[in-house]
């Protein structure tokens, strides 16, 4: 959270009234209204009911695949940065290889520092080798795909912690 204040005369050091937020959350849930907004001066609290009562029912029916799963879109929106990490995703469908050729050293290991543009892995698609570069400089925190396994478009491959 930012430590500088964004508006003149405000007192941002003051703690947020989380207990009041909680009470309003309660009220929204209990009362089944769509939204409650309370503003007083610089303080503004808005609580919206979760929309889509439709699909929330989906988990109730176990084997019926036809009921939509909660779309993964929302998840994807947030994933590029998780806890300040950068996600490197696959730009193509293909087979993920961590090293240039079988038996050779992996391009990167967890803990390695990489520079933007440095090759992290290759993805083979239709006999074409696609080198996948790091888009930021930083540390390799996690490798998310298995060597020699298939990856789909947009599948997360690595977590990088960008340099400050």
């Amino acid at each position, binding site marked *: 959270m930012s430590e500088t204040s964004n508006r003149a005369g405000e007192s941002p050091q003051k703690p947020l009234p989380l207990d009041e937020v909680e009470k309003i959350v309660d009220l929204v849930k209990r009362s089944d209204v769509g939204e409650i907004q309370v503003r007083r001066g610089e303080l503004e609290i808005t609580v919206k009911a979760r929309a889509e009562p*439709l*699909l*929330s029912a989906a988990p109730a029916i176990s*084997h*019926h695949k*036809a*009921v939509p799963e909660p779309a993964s879109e929302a998840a994807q929106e947030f994933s590029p940065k998780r806890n300040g990490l950068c996600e490197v995703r696959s730009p193509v469908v293909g087979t993920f290889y961590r090293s240039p050729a079988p038996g050779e050293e992996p391009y990167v290991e967890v803990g390695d520092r990489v520079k933007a543009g440095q090759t992290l892995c290759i993805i083979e698609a239709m006999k074409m080798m696609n080198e996948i570069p790091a888009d930021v400089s930083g540390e390799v925190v996690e490798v998310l795909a298995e060597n020699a396994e298939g990856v789909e478009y947009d599948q997360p491959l690595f977590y990088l912690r960008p340099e400050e």
Partner: protein
Amino acid sequence: MIGKVLVANRGEIALRVIRACREAGIRSVAVYSTADSGSLHRMLADEAICIGPPNASKSYLNIPAIISAAELAGADAIHPGYGFLSENSRFAEICERVGIKFIGPSSQAIAQMGDKAAARVFAAEAGVPITPGSTGVCASAAEVKRVGAEVGYPLVIKASAGGGGKGMRVVESEREAAGAFSAASREAAASFGDGSVYVEQYLEPLRHVEVQVLADAHGSVLTFPERDCSIQRRYQKLVEESPAPHIPQEVREGLMNSAAALADSLGYEGAGTVEFVYSEGNFYFIEMNTRLQVEHPVTEMIAGVDLVAEQLEIAAGEPLDPAEAPPAKGHAIEFRINAEDPRRGFMPQAGTVEFYNPPGGPGVRVDSHLYPGYKIPAHYDSLLAKLIVHAASREAAIRRGVRALDEFAIAGLETTLPLHLAVLEDEDFQRGGVPTSFLKERELRNEKGLLRLASVSA
């Protein structure tokens, strides 16, 4: 000519009739109870009249209210659907008296077939094989014993005014005859206001097969290849198919001819179903249902006939065209999707349909009054939807059934959908021709969220 039909029913069958009226250019009038104000049958009919409170005895069984509604709306005919007043001869008679065409047979034919003991006698006289047993009603346990001595045990005592397993008792030996007789009579009296019972040889294993009949006002009778309705739970049909698997062609012809002979000797008019038990190559008459059945679509799918449209035409006095019963094609199976939880003793479910998406694609028909957001009233029967699949062969129909059941999405309450998938997975069912004891002989198991049937070890 019929210009306007009052549909004296609710749920999917009311929709079925409203759709047929619409396609025939006939105006439809829905009647509904206050519990059904959000129902599709109310919304899709041309007119709708509220006839009473939720309790069916005061609405869907309320003869004065329904007749009044028909008179108010100026309906010239009433379609009773199934259940409710559909086999009530008094209702049919009142319709006849007030000059409203009852879409079905005469009140006399309904009454004749409504008395199950008398119907047996009537069928036997028409040359239809009946199960060995009493001639008409049994007045005492002694008569049950006399039949037992003659045809052997086990026997089954049935309520003459009955149906659906009520007032029914199996008698394994002469010792049990007196107790079973009085229990059955008592239950029959309590359930139907009439304690009369009759007795038959108890055949087991047996299959339930039935023949769809259409008869016009001019003496023509059409019959269709038999339906097999042996997948039952507590005498309630769950899965029906047509044609019945492994029935020899001469038996099929025997069934169809028997059904035609009975309809003929009754001077029957409209749609009806003659029910038989089939056991070891022989078939015997059980009863005739003088109305449309829940499972009529399986016949429609294989025969390419529209039975409700035919009912409307017959009611209008039009003659049947024998070309309307062309050779059946392929195989059809119907699944009754009920608001019951098969994982918890088939506990009835009520509540709101949170999500609803019926399956589509080739060879799939859905008859249902559901929609997303529909609140299922707790007052009526549990049928939510009928899924009917049709394919070139029984094997293909089973595969299509699996596909469609798996796509069928109903959320907000538990249904019998997973039970049907378990039935289709059963090897005996896949071989075909299982007896009515099929479900009783199996237990339901929950495996990784899927329901499976397992034979009960002896």
